[in-house]
């Protein structure tokens, strides 16, 4: 590795893990790319976050990776150390001192490589740490910014990079047997529901997680069925079907923009007033909260999560639901929807309308632990053992809730739990809230 590997700053002391590298860049070029990326992020708000840390270590106590392993390298704020280091040296008000006296070393390529494990494998960008920080530092925002630099330096995990690359040029994260459009129509036929496709004019534009197309077709059908029931003019667009955004996961700003632009352009093309984000957490963050910045101006349409949209319909009385069974249910709050997205009450309003006996998890709503799959971690093969360790407490919480039915509202969470079910022979099965709604339309 590079000559800069002799590094005695705090940043240097992290267990080296094998890192994925993209491109044939020299170490120097990688560091320069990262620095260029950081330069884009330096701003007043970020500066306040980076200046404020008092090293109290409390964020570790919010992170399920630290809680599960008690390994200090998983302290959330430590995961953004390269960013902090670069900021203090390059951009902060005292950059001149830090540089002149070498108080903060130049970020090295080795350091960035070592940090890949911390920034990707062991961070779900769930934002739990950002709620605990007594200084009010939004650490998950910093992680996202640091991931941007990692991506630009060609240091994203191979799986995320490949999927983001595939998605930005083809519209879907990986090749499929048939085009998703055809698979969607087939699902419609299978579940005997009309899939509105490529209408020129629609009130609402729909999209789906590719996880649902591949693994949970019933969920796709449920979305179409509910919309059909509401009688709202809506459509899928074959050039903007996939809700996920691997650009967001991998940290590729430009690719994230390109991927979001597909959906934005399609929504504009069909003059949609609302873009409904299906049961997918990070798609909500990407479209609801980040797309406008990438678009460069406020979006000319609203972005709503499907539960949010349905809860609204419930309130206006257009949506009526039957009581659904009588067993106890519990609900996993997807981080991107609840803690980071603000969609907290909508799923509960739906569950109430369904007459469900909700047994909240020990850590619920804003304080829910991530399923472990968020932030693209589910796709990173080598992260699986650590992920299983981190999610054990979550599974225990579900068991302890005493519920017979386990609901969530994010297909990535669902896929993560299904994976854990197989791995641990876990008894619970994650179900989609949307499917339950579709099954009980009044």
């Amino acid at each position, binding site marked *: 590795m590079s000559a800069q590997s002799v590094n005695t*700053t*705090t940043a240097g002391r992290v267990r080296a893990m094998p890192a994925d590298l993209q491109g044939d860049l020299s170490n120097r070029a990688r560091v320069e790319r990262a620095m260029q990326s950081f330069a884009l992020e*330096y*701003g*007043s*708000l*970020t*500066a*306040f*976050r980076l*200046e*404020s*840390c*008092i*090293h*109290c*270590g*409390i964020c*570790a*106590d919010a992170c399920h990776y*630290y809680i599960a392993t*008690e390994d*200090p*390298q998983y*302290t959330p*704020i430590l995961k953004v150390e390269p960013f902090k280091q670069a900021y203090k040296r390059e*951009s*902060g*008000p*005292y950059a001149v*001192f830090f540089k002149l006296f070498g108080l903060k070393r130049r970020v090295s390529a080795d350091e960035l490589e070592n940090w890949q494990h911390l920034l990707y494998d062991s961070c779900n960008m769930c934002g739990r740490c*950002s*709620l*605990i*920080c*007594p*200084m*009010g*530092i*939004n650490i998950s*925002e910093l992680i996202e910014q640091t991931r941007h630099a990692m991506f630009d330096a060609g240091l994203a995990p191979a799986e995320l990079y490949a999927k983001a690359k595939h998605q930005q040029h083809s519209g879907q994260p990986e090749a499929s047997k048939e085009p998703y459009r055809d698979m969607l129509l087939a699902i419609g036929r299978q579940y005997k529901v009309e899939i509105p496709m490529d209408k020129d004019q629609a009130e609402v534009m729909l999209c789906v997680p590719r996880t649902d197309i591949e693994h949970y077709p019933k969920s796709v059908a449920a979305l179409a069925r509910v919309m059909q029931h509401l009688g709202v003019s809506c459509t899928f667009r074959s050039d903007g079907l996939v809700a996920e955004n691997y650009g967001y996961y991998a940290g590729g700003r430009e690719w994230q923009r390109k991927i979001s632009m597909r959906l934005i352009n399609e929504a504009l093309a069909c003059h949609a007033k609302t873009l409904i984000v299906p049961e997918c957490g990070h798609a909500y963050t990407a479209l609801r909260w980040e*797309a*406008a*910045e990438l*678009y460069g101006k*406020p*979006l000319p349409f*609203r*972005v709503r999560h499907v539960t949010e949209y349905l809860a609204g319909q419930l309130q206006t009385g257009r949506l009526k639901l039957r009581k659904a069974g009588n067993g106890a249910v519990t609900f996993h709050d997807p981080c991107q929807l*609840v*803690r*980071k*997205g*603000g*969609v*907290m009450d909508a799923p509960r309003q739906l569950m109430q309308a369904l007459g469900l006996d909700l047994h909240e998890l020990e*850590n619920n*709503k*804003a*304080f829910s632990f991530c399923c472990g799959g968020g932030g693209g971690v589910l796709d990173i093969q080598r992260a699986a053992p650590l992920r299983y360790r981190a999610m054990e407490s979550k599974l225990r919480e579900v068991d302890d809730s005493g519920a017979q039915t386990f609901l969530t509202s994010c297909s990535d969470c669902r896929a993560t739990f299904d994976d854990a079910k197989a791995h641990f022979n876990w008894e619970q099965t994650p179900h989609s809230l949307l499917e339950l709604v579709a099954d009980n339309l009044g």
Partner: protein
Amino acid sequence: MELLEFARGPALKVALVVFCFGVLWRLVGTVLLRYHRHLSEPRDGYFKAFMLGLLVGGSRSWPHKQYIKRTGYGEALGYAYHIGLFIVILFFAPHVLFIKSLFGVSWPTLPSGIVTIIAVLTFTLLLAVLFRRLAHRVLRRLSNFDDYFSWFVTTLVIVTGLMATAHFGARYETLLAWHILSFDLLLIWYPFGKLMHAFYIFPSRIINGYFLARKGAPS
């Protein structure tokens, strides 16, 4: 010129100058960096988000109960020594006279004996804080020179203050000079290290609170 006069006069003057210079430099240098606009539609409007953000400035002082089981000890320790420091700094008669001499404002004070007891407790707590920083795997991992030096200058002021009160170790005017010199040192170090958190804490919380609130997310 005697040491005490030096501490109260030129050293204090230099310290105040460095303090004001450094604090403004750092704060302005942070505030005036680029501002990235946020274009997404706020959930409940900007005003509500801003008001909620302001609220977080205070509410984050009290940890969410879901976290307390894990963080209670550390937070209690942090709270305790901060309160101790505030009482000693703000309610010891000579300190109030010092503040009065600089700014012309004063307020009632506490009996010296009580302040002394609190100062001793605060010193003990600061030792516990250092011990925790050295013993706790996360804190040890995160800590750098700034953390230890900031602890040192804070504790030094407390220790010299107690020594002056107890007339322990040297003649009173020498001890008082050390005490004031150590405070001068603290003022000089202040803008450069983590002690600046006193200036950053509320803007930082409010910023985070605002951005969470504009998403309607819990804060």
